[in-house]
């Protein structure tokens, strides 16, 4: 089957706007989790989050469209624009059916939805804006991206909580293999509105620490829950031959993908990590590789002691003895967990690690929990050849997804 490569990266995340801002923040290990600024969060139990600094929606979305859409869609529109610019690809210059949009979607247009429910219950049905019908539902961003960029290909919206961003890449690959050469895939999340935060705290998985340095600390002995965050990444995925025909360089290949479900309990993860490990193994096998070929693991890093332990267990199941020395990182410790936006951002990070031969450090990690027996990248970036990266993600309820990205040799796919 044809290969799928990534030719464009569009990041809007707490680490910055654009892939290079994200990458330099990640390499510097600059903590971007901070007290929530957009509303008074003191009564929610969780006051920390990863917020996109200096995001000006007007740079990407005109006034008229801003009124019709949620912040979640603004972030996605910005990511898509950056990704297309990066790829040097403009869907409006080719057959409109040659491009599709497939996004992971976690919770939809939260701020917009809350405002309209409030309007309905305070002032009655007539006070609900007509845009409610198109702004909050889970397909809103995908639809808007398709309209903005004139794409008529087989678009999709995949929801599997925080695993959904990887599942969108998996589905994009299915679509590319069926003959649509280019897909915008990935996702954004905007969960930092009052009602959405109230929903998130009910899981008991969020940090309650007031100081960002004490908050989200994946794999640390002091792991105590995560900070939510906004943003994510949209990637341009292309059939490798089509990209080569365009003369477009590729960051790397989406070489393997797999997903499993714990099917254990609607809120608690399976205690044996068997299915999580199976997703990792299947993705590596799907890439035609073995665990020995993996140079770096970008972990889910949920930041709770039990979930971190299960992830370490899954890595041990997958890599056997090598688990103790395959480098593992979770740079999102700097940014918070971005639900369906988080994993595509980690894929972007993995591709940049391949490009520069640098493994970025785990975010906000002071004292790795020795019980995990993992070689966590800490402190400063580790210079090393990076050819193959395993990126994994879990979603609330038991979703496990894994993607393998691999260095792409130019010329391999010249027609």
């Amino acid at each position, binding site marked *: *089957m044809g290969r799928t490569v990534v030719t464009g990266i569009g990041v809007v995340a707490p680490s910055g706007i654009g892939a290079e801002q994200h990458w330099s923040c990640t390499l510097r290990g600059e903590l971007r989790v901070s007290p929530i600024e957009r509303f008074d969060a003191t009564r*929610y*139990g969780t006051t920390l989050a990863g917020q996109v600094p200096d995001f000006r929606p007007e740079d990407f979305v005109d006034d008229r469209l801003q009124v*019709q859409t949620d912040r979640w869609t603004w972030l996605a529109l910005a990511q898509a624009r950056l990704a297309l610019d990066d790829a040097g690809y403009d869907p409006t210059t080719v057959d409109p059916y040659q491009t599709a*949009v497939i996004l992971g979607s*976690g*919770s939809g247009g*939260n701020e917009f*939805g*809350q405002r*309209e*429910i409030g309007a*309905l*219950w*305070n002032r009655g*049905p007539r006070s*609900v*804006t007509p845009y*409610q*019908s*198109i702004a909050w*539902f*889970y*397909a*809103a961003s*995908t*639809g808007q991206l*398709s309209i903005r960029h004139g*794409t*008529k290909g087989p*678009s*999709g*919206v*995949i*929801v*599997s*909580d925080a695993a*959904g961003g990887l*599942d969108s890449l998996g589905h994009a690959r299915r679509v590319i*293999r069926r003959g649509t050469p280019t897909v915008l895939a990935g996702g954004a999340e905007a969960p930092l509105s*009052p*009602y959405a935060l*109230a*929903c*998130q*705290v*009910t899981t008991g998985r969020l940090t309650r620490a007031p100081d960002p340095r004490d908050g989200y600390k994946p794999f640390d002995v002091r792991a105590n829950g995560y900070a939510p965050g906004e943003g994510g990444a949209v990637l341009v995925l292309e059939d490798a031959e089509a990209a080569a025909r365009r003369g477009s360089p590729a960051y790397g290949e989406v070489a393997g993908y*797999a*997903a*499993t*479900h714990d*099917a254990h*309990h*609607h*809120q608690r993860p399976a205690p044996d990590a068997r299915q999580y490990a199976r997703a990792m193994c299947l993705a590596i096998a799907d890439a035609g590789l073995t665990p020995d070929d993996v140079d770096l693991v970008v972990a889910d890093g949920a930041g709770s002691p039990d979930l971190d332990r299960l992830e370490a267990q899954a890595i041990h199941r997958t890599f056997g003895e090598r688990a103790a020395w395959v480098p593992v990182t979770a740079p999102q410790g700097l940014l918070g967990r971005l639900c369906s936006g988080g994993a595509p951002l980690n894929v972007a990070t993995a591709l940049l690690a391949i490009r520069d031969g640098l493994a970025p450090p785990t975010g906000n990690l002071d004292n790795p929990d020795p019980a995990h027996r993992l070689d966590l990248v800490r402190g400063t970036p580790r210079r090393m050849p990076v050819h193959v990266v395993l990126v994994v993600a879990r*979603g*609330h*309820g*038991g*979703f496990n997804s894994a993607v393998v990205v691999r260095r792409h040799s130019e010329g391999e796919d010249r027609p």
Partner: protein
Amino acid sequence: VTARRRSGITGIGVVAPGGTNRKEFWRLLTSGRTATRRISLFDPSAFRSQIAAECDFDPVAAGLTVREVHRLDRFIQFALVAADEAVEDSGLDLDLVADRTAVCMGSAVGATTRLEDEYVLVSDRGREWLVDPRYATSFLYDALVPSSLATELACRFHAHGPAMVVSTGCTSGLDAVGQAHQLIADGEADVVVTGAADAPISPISMACFDAIRATTARNDDPGGASRPFDAGRDGFVMGEGAAVLVVESLEHARRRGAEVYAEILGYANRCNAYHMTGLRPDGVEMAAAITAALDEARLDPTAVSYVNAHGSGTRQNDRHETAAVKLSLGEHAYRVPMSSIKSMVGHSLGAIGSIEVAACAFAIEHGVVPPTANWERRDPDCDLDYVPKTARELPVDVALSVGSGFGGFQSAILLGRPGPAARGEG
């Protein structure tokens, strides 16, 4: 290119207005009766559209525990009941194929009803946001993320394969089945529990369609309010429900000697890249989806024996869709019967796509095409054979079901009678 594996439907469960299991559902469709009525789930007096197709659904009588009812939004309750029926119907012991069983479910609006109810609780009926966060249920995150639907089904059937919710608005249910078909085709699973569920008869959902006048205002005539393709149509009637299908690789079904309702012959979707709610009258993108599905099935347009329409009953949709069918099927469009079951069971947003696929499977099984209820007067822009009012006996070898939704999504799926060929290969 390696040959793709073929897939078929081996189990069906339905919770729909007027029929909360598959037999009652099919009986309603073939009777031509309508299940639309004045809304009883809340007081609709302040709303422009006060009609819906509601399910007479008793979750405990249908087999759910009191704890499940307490924990889960109505849309997931529908899905669980429909899934129990579908899995039992398939005769599969899913524990034997756990790692190879996927869950791929559609929903357009997820647990909005629950989210609204809880909002009302924590805000003193909207008067003051967050009176006390502790008033909220501890399952609030499960309501925030519609992925809970896939989780609940995976847990219920111990399905360890890929799990996801497809949420492409009003084509979610059709797209979920189409993606299930792709998961089988690509060898990612042998069995997929698929389908869709939605329970959007709530104040916020009704208000949001009121605001754009997409729903009917024919409040004095609930039974006649959903009038797809009729000259007097004035908007859709909100519905609710779920259909769950067990989709299986034909080879897997044959090995265990399972009955196959229908083979999934082809699926495709496109976007109109035009407008979030508006449709260009020419129907070009829906036609492109139909043509692509026919290409996958390697079928000529004349092979289609029945078209199950999206037929929502809005002015623009029915015109758009009629044009799309003419564009893709050519002269055959005038000969092939085309009906909308939304005339009877309303438009349950994401769920309806799967409910319609179930209807197509039954049409193939029974050789009966359901009618378009309430069709009385011809619209010059809608001049096809819409099977008015009465079901029609007709051998159905190939059924085409189409969907169209906000965001510009256009989808088409083809189901075929499982012939000897379907049993012989795989």
